[in-house]
């Protein structure tokens, strides 16, 4: 048997010459790919390369313009997502698809609820299913909790539990770790490996290189809607993937910018506290990048939201350049924060890129609050180009952009506000490696211009690579400050997981 024949015989699903356009915008151009049982097939590619779209074609959400989906050797036409699921194709989408107002148990059995006679919901069975499904992924979540009360990581676990509960033959995961902390991500990867060993075919999308090299049996790289290369476990390397993705060589990803001698203290936080955060104090100098590490739920976002004036503190104060910042007008003091969730907290999906960059800034604005679309386009262009936003134009609606490009739009707005303190909450979540490098460069650039930068990230290499100093949070308080030689991955994890006493302060 030749290798090709073997693929033919073993593929659980195969995509054949898939082509798909939105309006006049071609997104996929003849993509072919197969997935065998018992392998982890990683799909990589820049933001907007068409990965999510390919998944949506595979799972019956979009119909392809051309080409076919082949399951067990027979071409199929899915009538909808339910159809694909019935054929054993389960998917975890990039965007969370849970119903926030329903409980975890309700969500876990959504669409396939156990019934008694006359359509009656069998609540006991539903709960039992839920407990079993949660157990499978090792999540200690009360099935009676409403999903709205879970944090992103917990919600992601619920989604995975739900997908697995159907005992699929093929599981597709679209950036499952994007919203997870390192610890959670590791657990997830363990689960993925187990599932592979159980014989599942896994199609896995991720932008995290370490993850890809750790888990992939095969990697397919998409670029601009075409397959730019496929490599197997034996011949894959980070460099090869990146080069195939970006079409150029990316060097020194975590390049620590040139920082001058420490300048004056720019941001000073003293005893800032609220219901969700215990009193915290720290300061950041002009031109310094301070990392904020911790496991999910450690309170990093909450603390920064207080600093940025998003939420009201119950005590403490924030000073910028020696002046006390009024919490309700933190922006006026020059504090700008990139929020954690771009879709719900950041972007106006129905508005254009130009509008999104200019909103809340002084861009495109004339006397007496006059403005026009042309003015805003003109003002936003420089930012959009610097961020290398991939779009058909500045009039394109942000809702139509890929996740990574959406993130860049949001970042563009933050920079357009000319901050003196810039807080970035997971700035590279769901962002491809090329764009990451762009973002890191921008962070360094901002710091070089004297901006005080606070960086929250769940990717440790990112924090360690970029930050001059790292604060570690645990249990809603700052428990450690690491710098210089103490700044190691091991130290951060030790403090973040609470395996040391809190530092005396």
């Amino acid at each position, binding site marked *: 048997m030749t290798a090709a024949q073997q693929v033919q015989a073993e593929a659980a699903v195969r995509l054949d010459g898939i082509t798909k356009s939105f309006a006049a915008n071609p997104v996929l151009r003849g993509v072919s790919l197969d997935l065998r049982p018992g392998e982890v097939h990683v799909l990589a590619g820049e933001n907007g390369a068409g990965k999510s779209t390919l998944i949506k074609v595979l799972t019956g959400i979009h119909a392809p313009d051309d080409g076919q989906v082949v399951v067990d050797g027979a071409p199929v036409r899915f009538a909808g997502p339910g159809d694909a699921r019935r054929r054993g194709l389960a998917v975890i989408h990039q965007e969370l698809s849970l119903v*926030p*107002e329903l409980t975890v148990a309700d969500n876990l059995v959504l669409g396939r609820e156990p019934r008694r006679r006359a359509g009656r919901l069998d609540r006991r069975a539903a709960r039992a299913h839920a407990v079993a499904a949660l157990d499978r992924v090792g999540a*200690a979540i009360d099935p009676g909790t409403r999903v709205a009360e879970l944090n992103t990581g917990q919600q992601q*676990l619920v989604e995975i539990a739900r997908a697995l509960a159907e005992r699929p033959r093929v599981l597709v995961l679209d950036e499952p770790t994007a919203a997870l902390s390192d610890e959670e991500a590791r*657990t997830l990867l*363990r689960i993925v490996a187990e599932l592979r060993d159980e014989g599942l075919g896994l199609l896995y999308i991720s932008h995290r290189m370490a993850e890809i090299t750790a888990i992939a049996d095969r990697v397919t790289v998409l670029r601009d809607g075409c397959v730019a290369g496929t490599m197997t476990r034996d011949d894959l390397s980070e460099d090869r993937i990146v080069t195939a993705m970006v079409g150029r060589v990316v060097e020194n990803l975590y390049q620590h910018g040139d920082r001058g001698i420490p300048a004056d203290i720019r941001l000073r936080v003293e005893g800032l506290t609220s219901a969700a955060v215990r009193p915290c104090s720290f300061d950041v100098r002009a031109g310094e990048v301070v990392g904020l590490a911790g496991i999910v739920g450690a309170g990093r976002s909450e603390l920064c939201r207080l600093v940025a004036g998003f939420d009201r503190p119950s005590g403490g104060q924030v000073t910028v350049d020696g002046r006390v910042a009024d919490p309700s007008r933190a922006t006026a003091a020059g504090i700008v924060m990139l929020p954690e969730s771009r879709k719900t907290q950041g972007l106006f999906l129905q508005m254009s890129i130009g509008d999104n960059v200019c909103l809340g800034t002084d861009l495109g604005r004339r006397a007496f609050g006059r403005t026009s679309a042309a003015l805003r386009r003109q003002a936003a262009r420089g930012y959009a180009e610097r961020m290398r936003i991939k779009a058909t134009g500045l009039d394109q609606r942000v809702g139509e952009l890929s996740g990574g490009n959406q993130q860049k739009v949001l970042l563009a707005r933050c920079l357009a506000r000319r901050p003196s303190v810039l807080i970035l909450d997971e700035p590279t979540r769901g962002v491809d490696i090329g764009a990451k490098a762009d973002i890191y460069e921008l962070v360094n650039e901002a710091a070089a211009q004297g901006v005080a930068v606070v960086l929250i990230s769940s990717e440790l290499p990112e924090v360690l690579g970029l930050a001059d100093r790292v604060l570690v949070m645990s249990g809603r308080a700052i428990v450690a400050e690491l710098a210089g030689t103490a700044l190691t991955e091991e130290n951060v994890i030790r403090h973040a997981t609470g395996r040391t006493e809190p530092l005396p302060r």
Partner: protein
Amino acid sequence: MGSIVLTDRPPLRRAKRVTDWLGVSGALVVLVLLFAIVAPYFFTVENVLDIARQIAVTAILGAGLTFVIVTAGIDLSVGSAVGVTAFTAVVLALHGVPAPLALLAALAAGAIVGLVNGVLVARLGLAPFIVTLAALTYLRGITYVGTNGTTLFSTELSYAALGSGTVAGVPIPVLIMAAVFAAGWYLLNRTVFGRWVYAVGGNAEAARLAGIPVRRVLLAVYVLAGLCAAIGGIITSARLQSSVPDLGTGYELSAIAAVVLGGTSLMGGRGSLVGTFLGAAIMGVLVNGMTLLNISSFYQQIIQGAVIVVAVGLDRLRTPSGGTQ
């Protein structure tokens, strides 16, 4: 498999559930106490049953609307549907059709009204507000054309007992209301369909991806609203022993007010029938009490408006979140 570090969560949410109707039930208690003190006759069995009978139709319309509103829809046509279904029942009954058949026909008419709304919303994806606003208009037109603008009435209306009869002293409309709420509660809280209704309202896209037949769920809730409107039409026409062409005008607003007072969110995904009942009760108690006190109807309107604001405002105070929903 390794366990995952998850934060402990304060049992904050659960407690909230219980007080979901705090504002409206608080306001209701205050009003009842107030009227019981100042209005003689208010707190008599007869008067309480009277209030129950008077709110029955609003509450029943509200029950149907609760389903629609939980899916993030709205139905402005229920008032006009009361008119057209009442006409259907009365005209058939007066032409000698046996009462059960006439009532079935009225229910069928209500279901058809709901089906048309549902198809336009679920299949064509039109906005519920505008679809049912159009229905409000054309259904009224149909009733006028059908009745030729006249009142159809008969002292011998075969099913008049449904409006004015009692069983063991309890007015039949009250019993019908109880039955509708019991069935509705079961449907919404104990069946798979009920979960789907919440899911569609909470996140239609997620529901679709989960394989829930979103369109059929939408269709069903509008049909339910139409059926409830038909029940309302039957009760009202039985009580009036007639079909009046403009019957039901404006009922949609009282019913929606009851639903929203009861804490159901117009954004969908959240709501309850118990709340709707409380919402209808508060409006009924208010009108009854003020009439007993012989307050001028001009002032009654002002007070009603104010009570609505205060009741939903109280509800809001316990969740001190800023901004908009």
